[in-house]
């Protein structure tokens, strides 16, 4: 069954500049990465999915509900979005109440919200900071808090807009585990990122956005074979694939792990 259906979606902020120029997509349960150049319309697209913006024309259907006919509050029980800029999302002065806010807001009772929030904070590794003021925390920590807030809401669809900004290797691995974990609970995870290695290591399906259209859509390893299209979208293949190309090998591996496994004898 399709979880999200996007039909001939068009959108502009100002009439003279169309941002999304006709997008047709179906999302099923596959974990999906959205990649593409700066300004391609990725953030705009996910704000539309979340119902924060409404299509100029075309439709978005989330579990059978048209976003045009449903309020943001109504959709919020189904779809959670971690904003690109954590400062747009954070406004409480204590980490635990910050993370609980969204869960309470969609009608979870106090006890469940607390349990769910503590669990989410554990997943991002910030259980030691529940009483801190989010404004005293570093950018990477604020980003993790905004991820925990959305995970705590336990929605069926979770969208992460550039979750790996400012994250070190260890935190990126944590975020990867969170995505695998959510997926194994049967949730749809959609992630925007500029980190190609992270995409190669994490997602089943990859969409390439280019100037308001979907340029490529397919299995992640197949998308990363299309060097010419990637270049058009201001992208590069993951590092392992770049090495394969440079070596002129006939096999292209998209992760270090695959490269090493295939070449070991």
């Amino acid at each position, binding site marked *: 069954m399709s979880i999200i259906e996007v039909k001939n979606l068009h959108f502009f*902020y100002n009439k003279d500049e169309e941002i999304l120029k006709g997008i047709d997509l179906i999302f099923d349960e596959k974990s999906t990465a959205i990649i*593409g*150049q*700066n*300004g391609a319309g990725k*953030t705009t697209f996910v704000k539309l999915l979340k119902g924060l913006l409404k299509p100029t024309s075309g439709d978005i259907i989330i579990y059978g509900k048209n976003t045009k006919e449903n309020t943001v509050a109504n959709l919020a029980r189904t779809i959670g979005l971690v904003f*690109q*800029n954590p*400062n747009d999302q954070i406004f409480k002065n204590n980490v635990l109440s910050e993370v609980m806010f969204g869960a309470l807001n969609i009608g979870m009772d106090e006890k469940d919200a607390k349990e769910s929030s503590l669990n989410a904070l554990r997943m991002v590794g910030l259980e030691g900071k529940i009483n801190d003021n989010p404004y005293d925390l*570093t*950018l*990477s*920590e604020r980003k993790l808090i905004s991820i925990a807030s959305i995970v705590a809401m336990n929605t069926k669809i979770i969208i992460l807009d*550039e979750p790996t*900004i*400012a*994250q*070190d*290797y*260890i*935190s990126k691995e944590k975020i990867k585990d969170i995505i695998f974990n959510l997926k194994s609970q049967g949730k749809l995870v959609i992630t925007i990122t*500029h980190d*190609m*290695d992270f995409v190669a290591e994490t997602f089943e399906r990859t969409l390439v956005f280019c100037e308001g259209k979907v340029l490529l859509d397919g299995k992640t390893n197949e998308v990363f074979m299309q060097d010419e299209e990637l*270049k058009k*979208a*201001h*992208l*590069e293949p*993951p*590092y*392992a694939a*770049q*090495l394969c190309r*440079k*070596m002129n090998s006939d096999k292209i591996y998209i992760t*270090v792990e695959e*490269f*090493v496994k295939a*070449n*070991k*004898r």
Partner: protein
Amino acid sequence: MDKIVVENLKYKYPLTDKLVLNDISFKIEKGQFIGIIGQNGAGKSTLCQAITGLVPLFFKGAYGGRVIVDGIEVAKSNISDIALKVGMVFQNPFTQITGSKLTVYEEVAFGLENIGLDREEMKNRIDEALNLLGIYKFKDRNPFDLSGGQMQRLAIAGIIAMRPDVIILDEPTSQLDPQGSEEVFKAVWDLKKCGITIIMVEHKMEKIAEYSDKVLLMHDGKVIDFDTPEKIFSRDDLMKYGVIEPAYTRICKAFDIKDNGLYPVTLDRACEMVVKYNEHNRS
């Protein structure tokens, strides 16, 4: 000549009791490109702020040791004087945008107005910086109506237009698309070739390895090592510091492919060595 000297630098934020910078000493020569790496919370951004003088002139707290830029001790100078010499692109571009300017163009002009340039020179510099970062076409737009990556480009343009002697970039490409990120590294490399000293904090180890003259590895407020990328990424204890080698180095380590006793850190070097290794194994 040493452009920047840091001697026994120690620092605690107000009302905290942790030494976020714990006895840091190193020297940077004019025109070097220095990469700073280390896990989240290692103290990288705080160290950058100590070089700009924001620590301790703006962020108070307990401070010891000295930071000297061009022979001037920053703690005894003032923020606006240091800003003429040292420009910094902050980790979060959203906080760098002043919020008081209506357009992208005025945002870049803002910094320049304070250094007394004539109008012609100012216009040239703004146009050049906006073009270099690929955002000239947005010059009349409100900065808050830019995408995340476009905003980050604006933050970099604002500093480049100022042409300071030292440019500090704190994860400047975290929101840029891969080609944009490569373009920024190339642009910064060009500045370095003109004698500008560059300090860059990055988690993209492949880029740090390719562009840095030396890499400063930090952990828990201390300097663990300060050396060439090859030496730093050949260490076998990087995991302990929450740092991972460039993908190319990880591959070479897996096959124990060394180049003069050290592991390759760039695409070109790794390619050459892996090809050689394969040929050797085949024969």
